[in-house]
């Protein structure tokens, strides 16, 4: 018998506490979710039937699902692009340290730390059509009041604004770090070549911070496709399904209607979108992302 070395035992002892929950709650569930998506399981009854691609055909011909897919795309586009652009803008302002920069950074970052449920409650008051502050501000600029969360035209916009407010600080911090790492000498070299501020930004800054942009894109993609808390509190997917995203649909199918097969088919679509978009951005990043 081979004697197991001490080093080996330590290795096993150290990795198991992480691996057991990793397998139990990530890897095995992923495989199971894939399997369940081909069944008609309803959670309550014991007999489960294999239904092939039925759930997939069913959701793709379902108008609710298509609507949720579009809502998710709108939400993703609306939040990811603005969060990254505004995060970069704020990071730029903090590029040189000045008096009080810490306090500003802290205030901009604070929404990210706070529980979505608690601040959603406050924002649902801000969005109140009759007496809320959002319409008060619009009034100051002489604009017509909006229905915000109460109208299917503006509900998604309201959720997007809230989400940007909440997530900008996080993006900003990563960009501040990235900008600090851009070597001064590169800017100086560009200046000698006669570059102005704008061309310095396009030709020096953007390429050199592209790994961070790539990372933030992926992180924001994963979190935006998993948005749930604020939607559940502020609109419950309404009005008229206008804020029902894929994950919200998944929740409703799985934990309210117990359509486990159909719900897990939705989960697989969510997964496919993330894999597809990250492969796509890896492909794009090969061309555009510069690693030193």
């Amino acid at each position: 018998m081979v004697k197991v070395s001490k080093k080996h035992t330590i290795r096993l002892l150290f990795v198991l506490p992480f691996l057991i929950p990793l397998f139990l709650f990530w890897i095995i569930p992923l495989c199971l979710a894939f399997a369940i998506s081909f069944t008609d399981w309803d959670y309550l009854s014991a007999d489960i039937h294999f239904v092939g691609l039925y759930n997939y055909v069913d959701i793709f011909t379902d108008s609710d699902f298509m609507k949720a897919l579009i809502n998710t795309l709108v939400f993703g586009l609306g939040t990811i692009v603005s969060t990254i652009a505004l995060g970069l803008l704020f990071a730029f302002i903090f590029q040189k340290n000045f008096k009080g920069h810490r306090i500003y950074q802290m205030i901009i970052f604070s929404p990210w730390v706070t529980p979505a449920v608690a601040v959603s409650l406050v924002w649902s008051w801000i969005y109140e059509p009759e007496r809320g502050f959002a319409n008060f501000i619009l009034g100051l600029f002489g604009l017509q009041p909006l229905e915000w969360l109460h109208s299917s035209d503006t509900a998604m916009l309201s959720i997007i604004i809230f989400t940007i407010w909440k997530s900008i600080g996080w993006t900003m911090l990563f960009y501040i770090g990235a900008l600090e790492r851009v070597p001064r000498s590169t800017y100086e070299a560009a200046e000698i070549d006669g570059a102005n501020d704008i061309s310095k930004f396009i030709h020096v800054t953007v390429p050199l911070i592209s790994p961070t942009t790539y990372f933030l894109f992926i992180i924001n993609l994963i979190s935006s496709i998993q948005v749930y808390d604020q939607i559940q509190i502020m609109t419950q997917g309404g009005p008229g399904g206008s804020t029902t995203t894929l994950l919200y649909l998944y929740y409703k199918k799985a934990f309210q209607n117990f359509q486990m097969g159909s719900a897990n088919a939705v989960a697989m679509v969510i997964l496919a979108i993330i894999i597809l978009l990250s492969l796509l951005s890896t492909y794009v990043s090969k061309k555009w992302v510069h690693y030193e």
Partner: protein
Amino acid sequence: MKKMRLTIKHIFLISIAIIFAFPFVWMVFGVFKTNNEIWQEPYKLLPSHWDIAKVVESLGQINFNGYMLNSFYVGIFGTLSILIVALLFTYVVVFLKNKNTNFLFVLVLATYMLPSAVTYVPSYVILAKMDLLNKLNGMIFSCLASVFAVFYLRQSFLKMSYDFVEAARIDGANDFKIIYHVIFPMNKSAFYTVGVLTFVQLYNSYMWPSIMINDDKKFLVSQGLRQFFIQDGAYGMNWSEVMLASTLTLLPVILIFIIGQKWFVTGIVQDSGIKG
């Protein structure tokens, strides 16, 4: 000229800061307002009375302590367990690596992009089979494998010189001693950063706990807050108390964040060196 630019910068940042802080400020002032005041003069920022006694009285009425304790339990014990488990795993991946551990790390790398929500149904079933549904320890156990923590700690460990570990080993230190006397002190800021982020995440979590915890004595604060908000039937019944409950919920995370912001913010700014 330079001075003017700085002034413009400050004016711009002050207006931004107002936008970002406004909901919080308004929420805290709302605690002191009466319900009538909130409904009749919604645009008035300051309350007309600073009636502390009234706030203390409603504090006694809203019964929120249990939820806070549950969240603290999950937040504190969850964070400590996640840190220890991730530390041991990362230690092996970085300092005791072989072919197998490399494979394990690739496996973890693959899970990084996996949205956790996709696994909720099977995870729920597995928890039910283990008789861990409706239990705070079940909640902690299901969150124990933090892929993020492993990533962050690994980045930090990799920056450390391997010589320190070798030197300690030559001096006869075992792995536990190396971890305690070398790894931990040399990566303190990474541990703090991961610790605060993990605590905040556990404390703020809502979707997963609201799926797996149905017993309202075990609710976490976010669930409790929602419960409290809808229990009067119609939305917006008692805004003053809703604001009080929200403020209470926010307070711990904001406090931790303010106390820890020095190393926490710089931690993200400096340690986020993203390598391909």
